[in-house]
């Protein structure tokens, strides 16, 4: 399932995104690398401020170029995106790569009909006639499961329900059969039953078109449902990556373990207190020295010489699997097992 088979479709190498603000430099993304093959889904998990959304806005070139210092490489099908001109990017956006945002109401224009907004994308990139692109819009609405697409195509977004708006967004994102789809918390604002519909839809469409999907979420349950590979971000850095199964069943980084054990579940014992991660996420203006997770980490003192607060752990990825932590494998096995035992006894 790892994406090392051939030339990856999307390749991000040592990406750094720094914003200059009045208060100083915000290191939103600080050295991130990943690959994604066609037809695969990469899940990016992280809390607010972990840099997951900034990464993806940068891939699409939607950042403010005057205030952002970017370093690294983003290759889409072998083409460097960071040095591409605005004109070149405009050719790619909506065509080869597109994005679904969290808040569908804010991302659709209230002044234009849904059909117009979808067909505009198609016309721009294919040069199709108005009539053709309108038919294409109806076809797309039908494909994402909007009832009576011939009628609803002329509706304005406010006449759609939350789930239908998100479907319309997906229709717009997929109208040119993009090869890369970036979905930034596409289901967070939706109810669970609608969320399930949207996830099924994305999976179906991926099977049909072989789209590569980057799926950003804070919900590990959603990751378990949709992702092939998972990347866990904390404080602008990747702390752990691997296949979905590896990360969810055998977490190697204390942060991933913390996330998993702080989540209540629908099964298992109920009268056990949850195990939260103490403290709160770091400020990216002035991130902690060394490992960015060390102020909240239960195991920081187990590492000799205070290395956690002085030295940044390096993410070593072998076969798509790795974590950035100073703990040795033996220590990790021992400590994580202890924690699991504590959880059982509580």
């Amino acid at each position, binding site marked *: 399932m790892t994406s090392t088979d051939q030339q990856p479709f999307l390749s991000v190498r040592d990406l750094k995104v720094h914003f200059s603000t009045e208060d100083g430099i915000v290191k939103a993304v600080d050295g991130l690398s990943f690959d994604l093959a066609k037809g695969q889904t990469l899940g990016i998990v992280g809390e607010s401020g972990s840099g997951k959304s900034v990464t993806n806005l940068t891939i699409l070139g939607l950042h403010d170029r005057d205030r952002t210092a970017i370093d690294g490489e983003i290759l889409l099908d072998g083409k460097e995106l960071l040095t591409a001109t605005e004109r070149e990017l405009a050719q790619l956006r909506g065509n080869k790569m597109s994005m679904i945002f969290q808040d569908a109401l804010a991302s659709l224009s209230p002044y234009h009909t849904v059909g117009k907004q979808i067909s505009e994308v198609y016309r721009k990139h294919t040069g199709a006639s108005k009539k053709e692109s309108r038919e294409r819009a109806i076809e797309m609405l039908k494909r994402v499961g909007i009832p009576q697409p011939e009628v609803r195509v002329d509706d304005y977004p406010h006449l759609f329900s939350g789930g239908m708006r998100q479907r319309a967004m997906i229709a717009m994102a997929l109208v040119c059969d993009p090869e890369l789809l970036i979905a930034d918390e596409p289901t967070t604002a939706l109810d669970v039953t609608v969320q399930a*519909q949207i996830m099924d839809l994305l999976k179906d469409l991926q099977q049909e078109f072989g789209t590569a999907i980057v799926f950003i979420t804070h919900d590990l349950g959603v990751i378990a449902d949709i992702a092939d590979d998972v990347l866990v971000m904390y404080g602008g850095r990747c702390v752990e990556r691997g296949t979905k199964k590896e990360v969810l069943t055998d977490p190697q980084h204390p942060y991933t373990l913390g996330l998993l054990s702080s989540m209540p579940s*629908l099964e298992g014992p*109920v009268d056990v207190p*949850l195990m939260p991660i103490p403290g709160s996420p770091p400020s990216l203006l002035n991130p902690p020295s060394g490992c960015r997770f060390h102020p909240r980490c239960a195991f920081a003192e187990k590492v000799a010489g205070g290395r956690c607060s002085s030295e940044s752990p390096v993410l070593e990825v072998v076969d798509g699997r790795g974590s950035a932590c100073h703990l040795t494998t033996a220590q990790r096995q021992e400590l994580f097992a202890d924690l699991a035992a504590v959880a059982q006894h509580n």
Partner: protein
Amino acid sequence: MSDTTPLLDVSGLTKHFPIKGGFPIRRTVGAVQAVDGLDFQVGEGESLGLVGESGCGKSTTGRLITRLLEPSAGKITYSGQDITHANRKALAPIRSEIQMIFQDPYASLNPRQTVGKIVAGPMEINNINPAGGREARVRELLEIVGLNPEHYNRFPHEFSGGQRQRIGVARALALEPKLIVADEPVSALDVSIQAQVVNLLQKVQRELGIAFVFIAHDLAIVRHFSQRVAVMYLGKIVEIADRDDLYGNPRHPYTRALLSAVPEATVDETPARERIRLAGDVPSPINPPTGCRFRTRCWKATEKCATEAPPLVQVEGNKPGHLTACHYPETADTVPAPRLSKDPEAAA
């Protein structure tokens, strides 16, 4: 549920918001039936979870119990006293016993007041002077909720989301309430912080013996927090039961579908729960379906469901206290529901 008088007894609680329209004279042309005939009880020190999707009326219910909204019909009895239409003066002593925790810790704290003033606010309004002074009490409360009492003079913007929610909890505890209505208290927080606040609320509930009405859309959190759980759909309770019965033996098709839609962070090739995919969206509460309100999305609906609203009763096979409003309740061996077509109106 104990046999003694429950702390809170709600029967037939209804709230219809009128819709005005027409020209030149605006008349009431319809109503949003946000809450339509709820019956439930909350015992002392008990936690009742209210779950449902957006628009099901769970928040309205919370605001009705706290009398922030005026009920259209029905009866709310608190400690044996009818407070359905009690006036401001009659409510004053009761208001200090029923407190609320809000969803958004950024909007629910006054940015111009210090933490000390915010937490002391309820004592000031009710003119309560605890022994040792208000300030000492506030410091004690801050300690209970896990904040540093030295932060007494700080402003809300100096705190993170999780800490702000703790301030909200401290404020709710200031008057030693008997009942707290918590409306989505953790949904605005980050995953790693949610657990901190849930644990805090649980500690408060157990140690101080406070009853909770815990409103949330997250079924896993409600399962963790509440001993009894009520599932709402379009303004009605469709199922109410003790936690283990509701999650282990859901009888209403909606409860079952809702549970199966929650994504779990497990990698299981053969999921234990069958997946039910509901088609379409929740219908509008302005013009809800006749009969059973869930029938437009239900795979079992028949003629009877369209004409006759199912009562909330203990259906055959349920334990006492497990009530289900369905003509065709699910059983453990019910065949998994077929995957519904993606065309929501085909089913309607």
